[in-house]
C-alpha cells in the first residue's frame, strides 16, 4: 500500500516537472528537464486575429509563448516542425464566465416549516452583516483543477477562462486560469482579475433577502455601506467583507443575470453607483434590444438554445407556451441580432446543458447571420479585453501566451473539427490526425490473387476500408490504420464457408502498402497494395440539410409573450362619438356626448365635435365611456412579491416589474388602465410600491411606471405579519402588540436618522446612509405614502395613533375589512380605504368582514376604493364595485368612482387620471353596456390615447397567434424528425401572486 502511494507521488512529480515552466521554486526528484517546447507549426492557415489571417504560414512558439507568425517556410534552428498543411490555427477561445475548478455552492437552507428562521448572519467571523455579501471570496484561493472539466473545455476550443465562485450577491474576485494540466500554480494566469455580482442568494442561510428586489436593495445598501466604511465607518467596527469589497472596486466588474430583465435591473444599479458592469446574459437579449441600446452594455452571452417541445399530440401541445415556442425558434438568431445592432459581446460556454453542444450551437448562430469575424472576436479578443488580458491572450501575436487550437478546417464550418488544443505551449491532442491521404483505390495483391481495396469516408487519414474481388463483389472486410501500420482482414469469398485472410503491413513514402500475412490455411504470405494514380474522385456526400432561409423565421414580438405584437400600439387622435359619458365630475353622466382625444389627453367633451382626417372616429352609440379602472392593490406583472425583513422598506417593487406578464393584457381586457403593484404582507413594513400604467408591448419596465406618481409603500398588520400560519416562527413580532413596538422603534429611529442626515455639515464622519430608515423618514416628511394591509379594528386604530404620535397620516388602509367599525376615526385621521367587495371567512381575521363595508366607510366621508389583490378579480372590478349598489344601495355613480376616481385619489394621481375631464390623460374605457353591469365588456381600453386593447384587435391577435403556432408546430416537428430532441410540455402557470405569497427565489 505504502509502496503504491510512493510510486503515485513520484509519477506525479515527474509528470509535473516535465510539463511546466517557471516552477523553479519547486524541488524535484531527479534531474531537471525543463524543455523549452520550441515548435514551428508550418503550412497552416493562421488566424492571427479575427480580422487577420495568413495562408500557408508558420507559427513558432517557445516556452509557452508565441515567437512569430509569418509566411516564411523556414523552420528556426532548434525548433521541431509540425506540418499542419491544410489545417487552421486560431487563438484558443476564452470563457469570460466560468466556474471551472470552483467548489460546489449548496443552496442555503433558510426556509423550513420545522425550524425557526435565521434572522442574522450565520458566519461567526468578522464578515458582513449579510451572508449573501461575499466580496471576500477569492477564486484563486479556492481553485482546484479538474481534469474532466478541463478536457471538456479543450475539446470545444477553449484554452482559458475567468473563473469565480457563483455564491451570493457580491461574489468576490475571479481568477484567470487555463485549461491545461499541472499544478494550480501554472494553471492560474492571474489572481484577482474581476469582481463579480448577481441578484442571487447563493449559500446564505440567513432569511433576508429572499426576493429579487431584496437582492437589489442589499447590493445598493452594500455600496453605500462600503463607501461609509471607507470614509470613517471603520472606526465603529471591522468588516472584512466591506474591506474586500472596497479593494476590488477598481477591477473589471462582472454581473451575472438570470434574464433580460435581470440585466436591465443590474444596469439600474450600475447607473446609480456610476459603475460599468460587464453583463453575463442569457441568450434572450434580442427580446429587448431597444432598452439594451440605451446603456450600450458589454455583454457575455451564452449560446444555449431551448429544446424543441413535443407537439405531436395536439391536445398535449396546447400546453406549449407560445413564448417558449417563439424563443425556441429565435434564440439561435440572438447573436446575429446583437451584432447587427453593434453590441460588444463575448461568447461563453457557460449556461449550456452540455459543453458538447457548443460548437454546433455556435455554427447555428453563424448560419443565422452572425459573422465569422465577430464570432471569433467574441471568443477571443473581446473576453480578453473584458478581463484586462489583451496583452497576454486573444490573438496569435508574438509575445502572447501560446494558447491556440488547430482545426481540420474553418472552425465555423461543419468540417472544422478541433484537432489539437495547445495551452501555454503544451500540446493536447483532441483528435488524432495526420497528413496521410489514404483515400483512393488500391490494387491489392496477395500472393498471386488480385483484389481491389477501396477507401471511403470523410476523413482522409482514417477512411473506411473495403476489399472486393472482380471489381464489384464485396468481401466482408475489416481494417485499422494507425501510425502508418495497417491491419487488414477479409473473407476469402462470399460463401458461408468463407475463411479469413489476415494481413499486417505498413505504408511507404509513396502511399503504397506492403507486408506479411496468413492465408486461409495458416501459411505466411506476402502482400502489396498499390494506389491507383487516377483516383481522387472524392464523392461529395451532400447530406446537407436544407438551409433555412431568413424569411422562414418569425418576427420578434413585443412583449415576448402570447398577445405580444410585432408592433407596439401607437398613440392616436381619437374621437368617440355619441356615447354615454360617466364623467366622475360635477357633470355626472352625459348622454349622447362626444369625447375628443389628442396627444394622449382628453381635449374636448361635448356634442357634435368635429374630427380632422387624421382622427380615428369610434362610434360610441349604445355604449358607455368611463375613466379607466385603477386597481389600488395588485400583484400582477411582478417577478417577486415579498421579502422578509421586519422592516423591508428598502426594497422596491419597481425593481421587479415584469412587462411580459400576460396578466397585463388580461387586465386591459377588463378595463384596467393602472394599478399599484404592492409588496406583499409578510412584514409590518413592506417594500416600496410601483404604480404602473398597463402599457402592454413596452418591454422596458421603466416605461410602465406611472409618470410623476408620488412614492408609496406597503405596510401590513395582523396574521401574516405575525407569521400565524408558521407555528415554528420565532421572528419578532408574534402579536399585534409587537407590531406596534416595531413601528414605534422604526419611526423613532427614522426621525433621528433624518435629523442626523440633515444636520450633517461636513464635520466628522458622515452619517451612514440607510435605505431602510430613509424610506421611513420620507413617510415622516410626507414624501412617501402608506398603503397598509389591515383587517381588524384594533390594529387599524393602533396604526393611526402611532402615525399621529409621529405627526403623519396613514394614506390608505388596504383590505381594511373591519374599516366599517372605525370609519369615523379613519375620517378624522384622514385615512382612505381600499377594500374587497365581499371576500371574507378565508382566515380568522376576516370573519367579521361584510360586503357593506365600502358603503359604511363612504357614508362617513372616507375615500373608498375597491381593490382586487387578485389577477382574476382585477379584470372584473367594475362588477365588484356594483356589489355596493346591491348590498348597501350605493348610487351607481359613486360605485363606479370606487374603481376609478377614488383609487386615483388614494394614489394621488387624480390630477392625471380617474375622471373624464378636459386635460386629463386619455386613460379611458368604452364599454359595450352599462359599466356596472355583469354584461358589460370593454370594447376599447386606452392608456394615454393609445388603444392597447379592443375586441377587434384581440380577435386579430388570436388569429395571428393561431397561424404562428401552427407554423412553429410544423417547424418543431420537422426539427424533431431531423433528430432534435424534444421535451414533453407541462402548462406554465402564471404568476398569480397574492399578498400572502412568499416568493422564495
Amino acid at each position, binding site marked *: 500500500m505504502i509502496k503504491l502511494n510512493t510510486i503515485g507521488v513520484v509519477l506525479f512529480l515527474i509528470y509535473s516537472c516535465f510539463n511546466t515552466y517557471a516552477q523553479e521554486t519547486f524541488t524535484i526528484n531527479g534531474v531537471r528537464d525543463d524543455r523549452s517546447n520550441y515548435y514551428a507549426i508550418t503550412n497552416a492557415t493562421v488566424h492571427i486575429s479575427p480580422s487577420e489571417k495568413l495562408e500557408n504560414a508558420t507559427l513558432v512558439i517557445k516556452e509557452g509563448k508565441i515567437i512569430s507568425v509569418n509566411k516564411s517556410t523556414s523552420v528556426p534552428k532548434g525548433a521541431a516542425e509540425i506540418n499542419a498543411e491544410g489545417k487552421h490555427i486560431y487563438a484558443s477561445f476564452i470563457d469570460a464566465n466560468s466556474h471551472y475548478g470552483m467548489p460546489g455552492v449548496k443552496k442555503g437552507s433558510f426556509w423550513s416549516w420545522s425550524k425557526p428562521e435565521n434572522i442574522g448572519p450565520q458566519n461567526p467571523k468578522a464578515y458582513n452583516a449579510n451572508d449573501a455579501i461575499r466580496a471576500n471570496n477569492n477564486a484563486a484561493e479556492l481553485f482546484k483543477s479538474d481534469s474532466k472539466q478541463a478536457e471538456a473545455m479543450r475539446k470545444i476550443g477553449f484554452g482559458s477562462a475567468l473563473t469565480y465562485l457563483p455564491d451570493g450577491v457580491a461574489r468576490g474576485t475571479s481568477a484567470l486560469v487555463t485549461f491545461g494540466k499541472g499544478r494550480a500554480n501554472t494553471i492560474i494566469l492571474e489572481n484577482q482579475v474581476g469582481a463579480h455580482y448577481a441578484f442571487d442568494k447563493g449559500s446564505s442561510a440567513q432569511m433576508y433577502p429572499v426576493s429579487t428586489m431584496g437582492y437589489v436593495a442589499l447590493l445598493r445598501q452594500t455600496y453605500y455601506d462600503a463607501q461609509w466604511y471607507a470614509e470613517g465607518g471603520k472606526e465603529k467596527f471591522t468588516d472584512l467583507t466591506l474591506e474586500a469589497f472596497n479593494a476590488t472596486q477598481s477591477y473589471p466588474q462582472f454581473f451575472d443575470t438570470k434574464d433580460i430583465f435581470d440585466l436591465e435591473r443590474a444596469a439600474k444599479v450600475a447607473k446609480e453607483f456610476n459603475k460599468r458592469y460587464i453583463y453575463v446574459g442569457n441568450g434572450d437579449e434580442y427580446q429587448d434590444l431597444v432598452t439594451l441600446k440605451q446603456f450600450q452594455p458589454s455583454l457575455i452571452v451564452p449560446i444555449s438554445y431551448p429544446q424543441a417541445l413535443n407537439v405531436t399530440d395536439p391536445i398535449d401541445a396546447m400546453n406549449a407556451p407560445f413564448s417558449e415556442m417563439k424563443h425556441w425558434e429565435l434564440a439561435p438568431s440572438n447573436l446575429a441580432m446583437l451584432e447587427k445592432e453593434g453590441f460588444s459581446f463575448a461568447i461563453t460556454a457557460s449556461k449550456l446543458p452540455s459543453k458538447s453542444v457548443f460548437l454546433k450551437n455556435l455554427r447555428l448562430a453563424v448560419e443565422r447571420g452572425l459573422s465569422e469575424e465577430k464570432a471569433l472576436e467574441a471568443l477571443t479578443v473581446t473576453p480578453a479585453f473584458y478581463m484586462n488580458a489583451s496583452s497576454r491572450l486573444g490573438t496569435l501575436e508574438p509575445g502572447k501566451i501560446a494558447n491556440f487550437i488547430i482545426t481540420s478546417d474553418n472552425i465555423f464550418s461543419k468540417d472544422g473539427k478541433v484537432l489539437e488544443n495547445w495551452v501555454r505551449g503544451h500540446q493536447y491532442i483532441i483528435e488524432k490526425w495526420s497528413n496521410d491521404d489514404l483515400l483512393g483505390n488500391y490494387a491489392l495483391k496477395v500472393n498471386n490473387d488480385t483484389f481491389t481495396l477501396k477507401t471511403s469516408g470523410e476523413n482522409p487519414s482514417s477512411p473506411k476500408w473495403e476489399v472486393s474481388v472482380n471489381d464489384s463483389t464485396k468481401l466482408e472486410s475489416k481494417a485499422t490504420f494507425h501510425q502508418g501500420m495497417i491491419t487488414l482482414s477479409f473473407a476469402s469469398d462470399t460463401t458461408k464457408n468463407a475463411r479469413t485472410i489476415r494481413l499486417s503491413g505498413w505504408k511507404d513514402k509513396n502511399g503504397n502498402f506492403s507486408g506479411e500475412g496468413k492465408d486461409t490455411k495458416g501459411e505466411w504470405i506476402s502482400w502489396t497494395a498499390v494506389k491507383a494514380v487516377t483516383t481522387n474522385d472524392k464523392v461529395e456526400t451532400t447530406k446537407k440539410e436544407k438551409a433555412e432561409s431568413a424569411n422562414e423565421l418569425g418576427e420578434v414580438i413585443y412583449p415576448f*409573450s*402570447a398577445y405580444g405584437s410585432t408592433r407596439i400600439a401607437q398613440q392616436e387622435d381619437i374621437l368617440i362619438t355619441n356615447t354615454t359619458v360617466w364623467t366622475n365630475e360635477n357633470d355626472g353622466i352625459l348622454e349622447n356626448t362626444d369625447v375628443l382625444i389628442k396627444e394622449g389627453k382628453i381635449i374636448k367633451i361635448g356634442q357634435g365635435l368635429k374630427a380632422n382626417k387624421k382622427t380615428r372616429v369610434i362610434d360610441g352609440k349604445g355604449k358607455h365611456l368611463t375613466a379607466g379602472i385603477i386597481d389600488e392593490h395588485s400583484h400582477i406583472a411582478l417577478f417577486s412579491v415579498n421579502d422578509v425583513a421586519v422592516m423591508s422598506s428598502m426594497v422596491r417593487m419597481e425593481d421587479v416589474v415584469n412587462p411580459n406578464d400576460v396578466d397585463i393584457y388580461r387586465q386591459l381586457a377588463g378595463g384596467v388602465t393602472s394599478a399599484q403593484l404592492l409588496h406583499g404582507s409578510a412584514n409590518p413594513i413592506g417594500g416600496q410600491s410601483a404604480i404602473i400604467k398597463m402599457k402592454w408591448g413596452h418591454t422596458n419596465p421603466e416605461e410602465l411606471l406611472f409618470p410623476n406618481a408620488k412614492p408609496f409603500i406597503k405596510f401590513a398588520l395582523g396574521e401574516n405579519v405575525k407569521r400565524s400560519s408558521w407555528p415554528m416562527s420565532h421572528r419578532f413580532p408574534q402579536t399585534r402588540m409587537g407590531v406596534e413596538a416595531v413601528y414605534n422603534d422604526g419611526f423613532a429611529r427614522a426621525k433621528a436618522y433624518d435629523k442626523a442626515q440633515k444636520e450633517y455639515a461636513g464635520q466628522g464622519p458622515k452619517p451612514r446612509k440607510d435605505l431602510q430608515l430613509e424610506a421611513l423618514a420620507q413617510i415622516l416628511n410626507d414624501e412617501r405614502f402608506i398603503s397598509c394591509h389591515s383587517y381588524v379594528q384594533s390594529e387599524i386604530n393602533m396604526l393611526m395613533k402611532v402615525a399621529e404620535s409621529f405627526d403623519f397620516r396613514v394614506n390608505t388602509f388596504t383590505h381594511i375589512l373591519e374599516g366599517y367599525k372605525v370609519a369615523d376615526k379613519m375620517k378624522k385621521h384622514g385615512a382612505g380605504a381600499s377594500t374587497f367587495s365581499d371576500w371574507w371567512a378565508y382566515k380568522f381575521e376576516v370573519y367579521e368582514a*361584510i360586503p357593506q363595508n365600502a358603503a*359604511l366607510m363612504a357614508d362617513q366621508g372616507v375615500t373608498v376604493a375597491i381593490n382586487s389583490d387578485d389577477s*382574476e378579480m382585477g379584470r372584473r372590478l367594475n362588477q365588484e364595485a356594483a356589489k355596493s349598489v346591491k348590498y348597501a344601495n350605493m348610487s351607481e355613480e359613486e360605485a363606479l368612482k370606487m374603481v376609478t376616481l377614488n383609487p386615483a385619489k388614494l394614489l394621488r394621481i387624480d390630477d392625471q387620471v380617474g375622471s373624464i375631464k378636459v386635460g386629463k390623460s386619455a386613460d379611458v374605457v368604452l364599454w359595450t353596456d352599462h359599466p356596472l353591469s355583469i354584461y358589460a365588456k370593454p370594447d376599447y381600453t386606452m392608456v394615454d390615447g393609445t388603444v392597447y386593447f379592443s375586441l377587434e384587435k384581440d380577435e386579430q391577435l388570436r388569429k395571428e397567434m393561431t397561424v404562428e403556432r401552427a407554423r412553429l408546430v410544423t417547424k418543431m416537428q420537422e426539427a424533431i424528425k431531423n433528430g432534435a430532441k424534444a421535451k414533453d410540455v407541462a402548462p*406554465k402557470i402564471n404568476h398569480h401572486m397574492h399578498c400572502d*405569497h412568499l416568493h422564495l427565489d
Partner: protein
Amino acid sequence: MKKTYYIFSVICGLLLTITASAQVPSPAKAQNKGIILKGGEIHDGNGNVFPNATIAFNEGKITFIGNNFSDDSYEVIDISGQKVYPGFVLPTSELGLVEIEAVSASNDNYETGKINPEVRSVIAFNTDSHVIPTVRSNGVLVEQVMPKGGIFSGRSSIVQLDAWNWEDALIKENDGQHLHWPSKYYSHSWTSPEKGLIISKSYHQQVALIEKTLMDAEAYSQGKPTAVPDFPLEAMRGLFSGEEQLFIHVDEAKSIVEAIQLVQKYNIKKVVIVGGADAWLVTDFLKSNNISILMTDVHRLPVREQDDVDLPYKRAKMLQDAGLTIGLTHSSPSNSRNLPFYAGTVVAYGVDKEDALKMITSNTAQILGIDDQYGSLQVGKSATLIVSQGDVLDMRTSKIIHAFIDGRQLDLNNKHSMLYKKFKEKYDE
C-alpha cells in the same frame, strides 16, 4: 408548545366571536298558509318567462303558475315589477363543512388518506355555520355538500339551507361518491409558482390505484354480504347498482376521457364530470357518452398564456353549443354566494339568459337527480324559490327580498346584514 398555544388561541377567539355576535337566524316554520306572489315576472328555470304572472304555493308545493289565481285562504304578496326564480342549487360544495378556511379546527372537508369512499359529508354539515345565511340570502337554497380529501373522497348528500340540524336539512342522503382524479402536473414549488408545472411521475400509479379500487369494489358489490362489511367497498355498492352517481373531479382533456373510460370498464352506471376546464376539447366524446358537466368557477384565469383571455367565461357556451348539459358550481364556500354571477358572466359570453339560469337551477337539479322537486318552478314541485327586485344574474340589479324553501319563508338576515345594521345605527346616532 407554540403550536398548541396557537391553536388554543384561535379556538378561544372563535368562541368569543360567536358569542359576541348575533346567532344564525332560526329556521322557518313549515308552511301553514298558502302564499300567492302576484304580479311578478316568473322565470321557471326551464327556459320559460311569464311576465306579470302569479305563482301560488301551499304546504310547500307549487299550486299555480299563471295569470289569475285567487284563493282567500292564501296570503297575497304583491311583487309587481319583481322577478321570481327557482332557488339556486349549489353542487359539489363544502359550504357547512368549512367555516374559516385558514383555521383548520373549523374545517371538516379533507379526511386523511387516499381511499375513503365510506366517509359521509352530511354528518359534519354545520347548519349553524355563519357562512350559510350569507349564501342563502343571495338565492342559493339547495346544496350538494361534498367531502374533498384524497382520491376517493367519500359520499355527498343534498341538503336545503334552512334547518335546525343536518338530519332535517336532508333532501337526498348519500347521492353520490366523489373521485378526485389525480393531476398530471404538479407545481414546481409553492413558493415559486412561476417556475411552472412538472409532469407528475406518480400519475399512472394513482390511476392504477383507482382502477384496483374499482375492480375490487365491483366484485365486492356482486358478492354476498360479509359479517363485518368492508366499509370502503360497501360504500361504493350504489355506484354499480345505479343508485348513486360517481362525480369525477377532473380538468384535463385526456384525463377526462381516461377517467370516464376507466369507470365504464367497471360498469359504473352514472357519471358526472366536475371541473371540466378542458372538457371543451372533447365534447364529441362527452356527448356520445351522455355525460353532464358541473363546471367549476367561471371566474378563473386561463391556464395557458395563449388561451383566449375570456376562455373561462365562454366555456359554458362552448359546451352548451356541443349539446351537453351543464351546471355551474363554486369552489369557495364563503364566496359561493356569487354563484348567480357565474351565470351572469356566461350570459355576457354568449349563453341565453334563461339557459344560464338553468345552469344554476334545473340543469343542476337534473344532474343531481332532484329535479322531480327542485330546480324549476312547476305546479306540484317544491316551492323553493326566490324573489328579486331585478335581474338576479347581475349584481347591479340583484336584490333578493323573499326566499322560500318548501314554502317556508326564510329569514334573510345574516351575520353581514346584522353587523351592517349594528354599525349603521352606531353612526346614525
